[in-house]
């Protein structure tokens, strides 16, 4: 190998390397270009990174953003207390009722055991009546409880006592005056027994029972004829809460005719 040949070989090696190096870099740049320009290609690379970051972020929310969000919610609730109360009223009502019901049930079971053992006039009379009339006893029990009937339902604004809506099966008294009178009685009684903020729930008037269901800015008065008993009261309460909740009463307090229609549709079909 002479000098020239050697030089050529070296040149060859060097140049080839250089060329390969250049083409290798070119290739890499192409791939990079490709990756950066084509979204889907880029996302294959970047997505995992974002995902890990996001996961970390989500994990950190409770510590970093949590207090801010809680604070924001708190102010929001504070500023729109009335709206919150209105929205929660039917739900809270139901919850409290369930609780009280449960406690009452326990209590009444205990009492019932006692009463059954000791005396039962009612049963005695029922037996006598059953014998005399030939109707069996359990049917008589049912009869005692099926008589209650809704006569009129009135939605009344608290305070002013102005009528917001009304539905009646048989027109009774002037509903505007009934609404005012009930409100006056209600505030009198509630003022008179103001230990805690108690609400009047029931008025007996003539042959009628007036059931009063309180909500935040309004109350519903239901005029009932017949046997208004615990079972009936219970069903009525449930139905009223359901009505307030489902029909979004709060939103329609300003629309007398719509609200009255809603009462009618909701209550016309059954005795409750």
């Amino acid at each position, binding site marked *: 190998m002479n000098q020239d040949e050697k030089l050529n070989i070296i040149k060859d090696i060097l140049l080839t390397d250089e060329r390969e190096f250049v083409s290798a870099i070119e290739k890499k740049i192409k791939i990079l270009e490709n990756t950066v320009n084509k979204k889907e290609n880029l996302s294959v690379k970047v997505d995992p990174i974002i995902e890990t970051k996001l996961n970390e972020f989500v994990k950190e929310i409770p510590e970093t953003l949590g207090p801010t969000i809680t604070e924001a919610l708190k102010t929001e609730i504070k500023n729109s207390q009335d709206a919150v109360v209105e929205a929660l009223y039917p739900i809270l009502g139901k919850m409290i009722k369930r609780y009280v019901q449960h406690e009452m049930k326990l209590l009444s079971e205990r009492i019932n055991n006692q009463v059954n053992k000791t005396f039962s006039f009612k049963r005695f009379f029922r037996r006598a009546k059953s014998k005399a009339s030939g109707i069996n006893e359990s049917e008589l029990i049912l009869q005692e409880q099926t008589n209650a009937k809704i006569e009129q339902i009135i939605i009344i604004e608290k305070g002013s006592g*102005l009528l917001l809506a009304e539905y009646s099966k048989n027109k009774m008294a002037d509903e505007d005056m009934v609404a*005012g009178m009930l409100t006056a009685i209600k505030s*009198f009684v509630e003022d008179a027994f103001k230990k805690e903020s108690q609400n009047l729930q029931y008025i007996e008037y003539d042959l009628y029972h007036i059931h009063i269901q309180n909500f935040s800015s309004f109350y519903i008065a239901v005029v009932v004829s017949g046997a208004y008993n615990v079972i009936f009261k219970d069903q009525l309460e449930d139905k009223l809460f359901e009505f307030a909740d489902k029909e979004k009463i709060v939103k329609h307090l300003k629309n007398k005719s719509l609200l009255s229609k809603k009462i009618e549709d909701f209550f016309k079909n059954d005795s409750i």
Partner: protein
Amino acid sequence: MTVSKKIVLIGHFGVGKTSLIRRFVENTFSEDYKVTIGVHISKKTITIPEGEQISLIIWDLEGQDDIKKTRPSYLLGTNGFIYVFDLSRPVTFQDLNSELSFLKENYPKIPVKVVGNKMDLVNKIYLKEHQTIFEPHVDYFVSAKTGSKVEKLFSKLAEDLI
């Protein structure tokens, strides 16, 4: 659709609150004095000049010699007050200033009509004598007995509420 408004009548005992309402609603009058206990509520629907129907739900409160003794819950949501005193009995208007400022302070946005009732029992000279008390406050001199200005009182108040 008819709008409903709550009107409340207040003032001392026996000034004629119930009589004014009976005159307005039933167009009757009685010399008998039956003290109102608690509240009595009546209603009259009228048409104001703009053609609108308005139902006045009128709260007749029991008399109080001091307005501060009125049960506050009766006054909640009132749309308009009528403050009544008895022109013939100075004891019912001697505290007019403080009685009316009580209303202004506690119900600043609610219209109040101030009326001297039993106009049939007094004469022009008497009114002149008490001008310093009456003039700044009184909106109407009325009589439940003769019916003078009663209709006007209620319908003007109703117009103010629309």
